[in-house]
C-alpha cells in the first residue's frame, strides 16, 4: 500500500484522539513518501498518550506540512523519495502497525546500504522543520537538578569533571536538609508556574516526600511492575523459537495493565499518560530493568526529550552489584547487594547527560543546572550568570547556591 491509497477506515484501530488527528490530516499524509509516513504515524498512533509538548509539536508539524505547496512538499521530501523500498515493505500494512514497519525498514536500509541516505534525509527534514516552525521558548527558564552519590561516605576522586568547564564548582556547600531544600524549591516553582507535566521529580530509589503538583517517577514505586516484566521476559525467553527481535517486539507492545499497573486511588485517578511513559522506560530502555542508575538516567533523558519540563530533579540511588544475567533476571532472588561507589561513577556521568539533554531543549541559553553530591559539600552550578570554569569556596546552603544559579 502506498500513502496515496490511505483511507480513514485504515485508522479504525487507532485510539480516538489519534484517529481524529490522522483523519484531519489525511490529505497531507497521502502526499508523503512511504519511507517517511510510517515514522510519523508511529508517533501519531500514540497521540492519546503523549505529553502536551509532544502533542503540540506534532500538531505544528502537520499544520506546516499542510500549508506547503506541492512543489515545496516534493522538495522537502526529495531525500526520502530517493530511498528505494522493497515490494514486501510496500505491501506491509504500515498504517495499522507503523512500529513494526519501522523495524523492517531499519533492516532494509541496513542491508541495502541506504542508512546514510536515510539519515541525511532525516537530518535535512528536521533542520527544515525547525526553521519553519521554531520551537517555543519556555515561559520560565528551565532548571535541572541532579543529586548523586546517595550512600557514599567519602570519595577521593574529583567529581563533575565533564561539567566543570561549563559552570562554577562549590566546595563548601552545607549539606544539611539538602534534599528537602531542593524539593521545596522545585515545589515552589511548580506552584508559581503550574502546567501539566511541567515539573518532575525522578528518583532512582525510594522517593522522598514531594509536593503533589510534581510529576514523580521512582524506581521503588515501579518495583512490582519491574518484577512482573522480568517474570514475563523470563517466560518468553524460555519459549522455543523466541529470539531477541521477537522479544523486543513483544516488549514494545506491552501496556500498563500487562504489568499489573493500576495506581488508581481515592485521591488520584489513573494517569495513563504517565503509566505508559513508565512502561516505556522499562520496555524500551536498556538496563533499566536491572540497574537503578540506568533507569534514573534514561528516565531523565526521556522526560526531557518528550515532556520538555520546566523543572527536573533527578536523584540517583545505589544500583545493585553486577551479577550474572540469569540471576539479574530472576525477580525472586534475595534482596541484592548494592554498589554505592560504582553508582556514584554512573551518576556522575549521568548528571552530565542530564545537562546535555536539558541543553537540547528550547531556551537552553537561559537554562540553569545544579548537581550536588548528596550529604556532602560538593556541588556544581551552571547558569547564565554563573561564571564558567570557576571554583567558589563560599560557605552556602543549597538554597543559596540555587538562588545564585537561577
Amino acid at each position: 500500500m502506498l500513502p496515496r491509497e490511505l483511507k480513514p477506515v485504515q485508522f479504525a484501530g487507532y485510539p480516538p484522539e489519534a484517529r481524529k488527528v490522522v483523519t484531519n490530516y489525511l490529505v497531507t499524509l497521502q502526499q508523503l513518501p512511504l519511507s517517511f509516513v510510517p515514522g510519523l504515524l508511529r508517533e501519531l498512533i500514540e497521540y492519546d498518550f503523549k505529553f502536551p509538548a509532544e502533542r503540540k509539536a506534532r500538531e505544528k508539524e502537520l499544520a506546516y506540512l499542510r500549508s506547503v505547496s506541492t512543489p515545496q512538499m516534493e522538495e522537502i521530501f526529495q531525500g526520502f523519495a530517493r530511498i528505494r523500498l522493497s515490494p514486501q515493505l510496500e505491501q506491509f500494512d504500515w498504517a495499522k502497525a507503523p512500529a513494526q514497519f519501522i523495524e523492517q525498514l531499519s533492516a532494509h536500509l541496513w542491508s541495502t546500504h541506504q542508512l546514510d541516505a536515510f539519515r541525511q534525509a532525516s537530518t535535512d527534514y528536521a533542520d527544515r522543520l525547525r526553521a519553519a516552525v521554531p520551537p517555543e521558548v519556555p515561559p520560565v527558564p528551565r532548571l535541572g537538578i541532579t543529586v548523586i552519590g546517595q550512600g557514599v561516605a567519602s570519595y577521593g576522586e574529583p567529581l563533575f569533571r565533564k561539567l566543570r568547564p561549563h559552570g562554577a564548582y562549590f566546595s563548601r556547600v552545607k549539606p544539611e536538609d539538602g534534599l528537602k531544600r531542593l524539593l521545596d524549591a522545585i515545589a515552589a516553582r511548580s506552584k508559581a508556574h503550574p502546567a501539566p507535566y511541567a515539573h518532575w521529580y525522578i528518583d532512582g530509589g525510594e522517593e522522598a516526600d514531594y509536593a503533589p503538583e510534581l510529576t514523580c517517577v521512582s524506581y521503588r514505586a515501579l518495583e512490582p511492575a519491574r518484577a512482573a516484566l522480568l517474570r514475563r521476559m523470563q517466560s518468553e525467553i524460555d519459549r522455543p523459537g523466541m529470539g531477541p527481535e521477537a522479544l523486543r517486539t513483544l516488549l514494545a507492545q506491552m501496556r500498563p495493565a500487562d504489568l499489573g499497573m493500576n495506581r488508581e486511588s481515592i485521591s488520584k485517578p489513573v494517569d495513563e499518560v504517565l503509566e505508559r511513559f513508565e512502561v516505556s522506560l522499562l520496555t524500551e530502555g536498556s538496563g533499566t530493568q536491572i540497574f537503578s542508575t540506568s533507569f534514573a538516567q534514561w528516565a531523565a533523558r526521556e522526560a526531557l526529550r518528550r515532556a520538555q519540563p520546566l523543572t527536573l530533579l533527578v536523584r540517583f540511588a545505589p544500583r545493585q552489584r553486577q551479577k550474572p544475567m540469569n540471576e539479574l533476571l530472576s525477580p525472586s532472588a534475595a534482596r541484592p547487594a548494592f554498589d554505592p561507589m560504582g553508582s556514584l561513577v554512573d551518576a556522575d556521568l549521568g548528571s552530565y547527560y542530564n545537562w546535555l539533554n536539558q541543553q537540547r531543549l528550547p531556551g537552553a541559553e537561559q537554562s540553569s543546572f545544579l548537581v550536588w553530591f548528596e550529604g556532602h559539600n560538593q556541588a556544581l552550578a551552571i547558569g547564565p550568570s554563573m561564571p564558567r570554569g570557576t571554583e567558589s569556596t563560599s560557605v552556602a546552603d543549597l538554597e543559596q547556591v540555587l538562588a545564585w544559579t537561577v
Partner: protein
Amino acid sequence: MFEYFRKDLKRPPSDAWVVAPSNGFNRIGESSHRSYGPGLGARVILPKRLLTAATSGRSNDYQHLLRDNYETPYFAPELAGSEFELQQLEMILKLSVDDFKNHAQTLSSPDELSLYVARQLMRQVAPSLLWITMHDIDIAHAGAYSLYVEGIRRTDRLCSDLWKTIQSEPEYAGKTTLFILPDFGRDSDEDAGGNGFQHHRTGDALSRTTWMLAAGPGIREGVAFDRAVDSTDLVPTLGSMLGFVPSFAQGKPIGELL
C-alpha cells in the same frame, strides 16, 4: 576468512579456531556458501558451554562466568547436549573436568575464561589462525558507566596478557601477528538520537568509527596511521599476509601493514 584460509591453503580443521563468548556465536565458524561452507570453516569453542557442561549446569559458584548478554537483557538460546564439550575439554584442551572447574573458580569474568581457553588451545593445538571475541565490554549496553570502564580496563589487560602469551609460546613467538579491533564505535554524546556511551545505534560517524591495532613481525611499532580504512579491509589484508584469495571480499589490503 576461515573458509578462504582453509580451502585455499588446504589447511586441516585443527588449524583455524574461534573462541567465542556467547552461546549465540555457535555458528560463527563457517558460512553456508556452496563453494565453501560446512566442513571448511573454523572449529568453535564456546567457553561458557564448556563450563556449563563441566559443572553439569548445577553449580552456582560459576554463575559470574556464565553471563551471556547485556542488552535489554537479551539472551542467546542454550544449546542442547554436553558430550561434545566434554570431549573438547579432554581431547583437545587436555584438561580434566576438575582442573577446568578449579581454574574457572579463580577467574572473575567470561572474557577471562575465554582467554584461559584460548591459551590452552594455543599450547595444545597451536592453530595458525585463532579468533577470540571478547564480550565483557558489552556491559555498556546496560547503561552503567562504571561497569563499562571496568570492562574496558579488564579487556585491555587481557589483550596485553594475550600478547605476552604469544611471545612466550614457542609455536607463536616472533612469528605471529595480532590484530585487535573493537567491532563498533560508540554513539557521540552530541548526537541527540543516542544516549552517549551506551549504544552504537545512531549511525553517526563516531558510532561507526573505531580503531584497530596490529602488532607482529614486519609491522612498524609505535606508529599511528590516521588514514580511514574499512573493517572489510581486514580479510583482504589477512589474505595478502597468509596467501589466500578472498574472492568475495569487498575491502582492500591495508598497504601500511604489508
